[in-house]
């Protein structure tokens, strides 16, 4: 086959491909015309309730999946852009004391190493004669107050870190909890940071244009809430925590 024959074949193939597309368009037009002609018959169709129910569940599942993907995407964004990664730096270290009463002595040191673009929060726990309590999913805190339209979405467990996700149609609130000793890197670049009261304790509020983060500790747990919310809403969520039974 000479060059001209090859060119002709190639040209013919391209022309046929274009024609197949035209046939495809014509076919779609034909089947839609057929449907239009059967409109009266179609209107008489009674769809079963079971099908509508199925679709309602299906669409709900789809939305949940979409929210989960958005949430994971957000997590990934944070981990790359703002270095929000959670790392258990130290569990605890034991102080041998001569105390008569075997009560736990906890020393919390807020280490706030101010970096150029992030601040590391870490609460180190010192427990007398006991190991750091291990957190598992059977033992967790959850907020009893949520801003309007937010509902529980999903959770993830990594080691003794539990992350609960709550979302509405647009935004997600991520509530993270871990045993004392966890380290949280929070983006504080161009952020306003201040200490705020949370019930009987206090925490740190990092307020940024694209959302706020609240970090605090309640003696045996570290908590962090992140979301595109007003600071007072974050505090209300924090104050509403309850432990699961």
């Amino acid at each position, binding site marked *: *086959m000479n060059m001209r*024959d090859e060119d*002709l*074949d190639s040209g*013919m193939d391209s*022309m*046929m*491909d274009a*024609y*197949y*597309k*035209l*046939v*495809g*368009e*014509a*076919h*779609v*037009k*034909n*089947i*839609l015309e057929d*449907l239009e002609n*059967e409109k009266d*018959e*179609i*209107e008489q*169709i009674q*769809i*079963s*309730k*079971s*099908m*509508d*129910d*199925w*679709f*309602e569940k*299906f*669409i709900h599942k*789809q*939305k949940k999946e979409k929210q989960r993907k958005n949430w994971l995407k957000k997590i990934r964004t944070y981990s790359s852009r703002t270095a929000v990664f959670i790392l258990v730096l130290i569990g605890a270290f034991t102080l041998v004391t001569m105390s008569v009463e075997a009560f736990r002595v906890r020393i919390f040191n807020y280490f706030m190493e101010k970096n150029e673009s992030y601040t590391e929060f870490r609460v180190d726990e010192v427990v007398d004669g006991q190991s750091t309590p291990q957190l598992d999913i059977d033992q967790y805190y959850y907020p009893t107050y949520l801003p309007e339209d937010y509902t529980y979405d999903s959770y993830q467990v990594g080691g003794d870190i539990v992350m609960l996700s709550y979302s509405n*149609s647009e935004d997600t609130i991520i509530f993270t909890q871990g045993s004392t000793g966890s380290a949280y890197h929070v983006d504080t670049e161009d952020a306003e940071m201040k200490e705020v009261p949370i019930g009987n304790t206090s925490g740190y509020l990092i307020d940024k244009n694209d959302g706020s983060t609240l970090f605090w500790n309640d003696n045996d747990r570290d908590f962090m809430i992140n979301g595109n919310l007003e600071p007072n809403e974050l505090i209300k969520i924090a104050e509403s925590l309850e432990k699961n039974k």
Partner: protein
Amino acid sequence: MLAFLSVIENDVVRSHLEELYLLYHKELVHVANKILKDYHEAEDIVQTAFIKVADYLDENIDVKCNKTKGLIVIIVRNLSINQYNKRKRRATANIDDLADIICDDSAITPEINVLRLDQSEEVARLLDNINEGYADILALKYLYEYTDKEIAEILSMSEGSVRTKLTRARQACKDVLGGERYEYA
């Protein structure tokens, strides 16, 4: 449930899937039922079609445009045909029987017929008469530009079956246009 959907009809965030369901579910059940003659089975097929189409819907699609409606109708048609064939092996028109269908002057070659663009709807109908899946698969491949793998997933077929069907559909199209003399070289 329809009441539930109607309530959110004006909600701007209503998903494309919900819109698709609201707009076309009756027509889709009708399409499936025409092939299967069984409403329950037809509803099952429509459910399967929605599960499949959910992964292939572009966020920017216009749900109300004919191209989108055509896509879901094609999917329902093919899933119904597959189901029908499973239920009862149906003899489809043999490509050798084309002579009975094609009324074109046999002296006209395909390349000449291709230029008759105004006849594309008739060609599509003839192709659909030969085998209900041929025009569908050409549309999925050349109009919707899905890959063989995507078509296989959408229509619950193997990739090999998709390629075979595409080859047969293309050949049938050429035969509709001008018979075996398409191999002009």
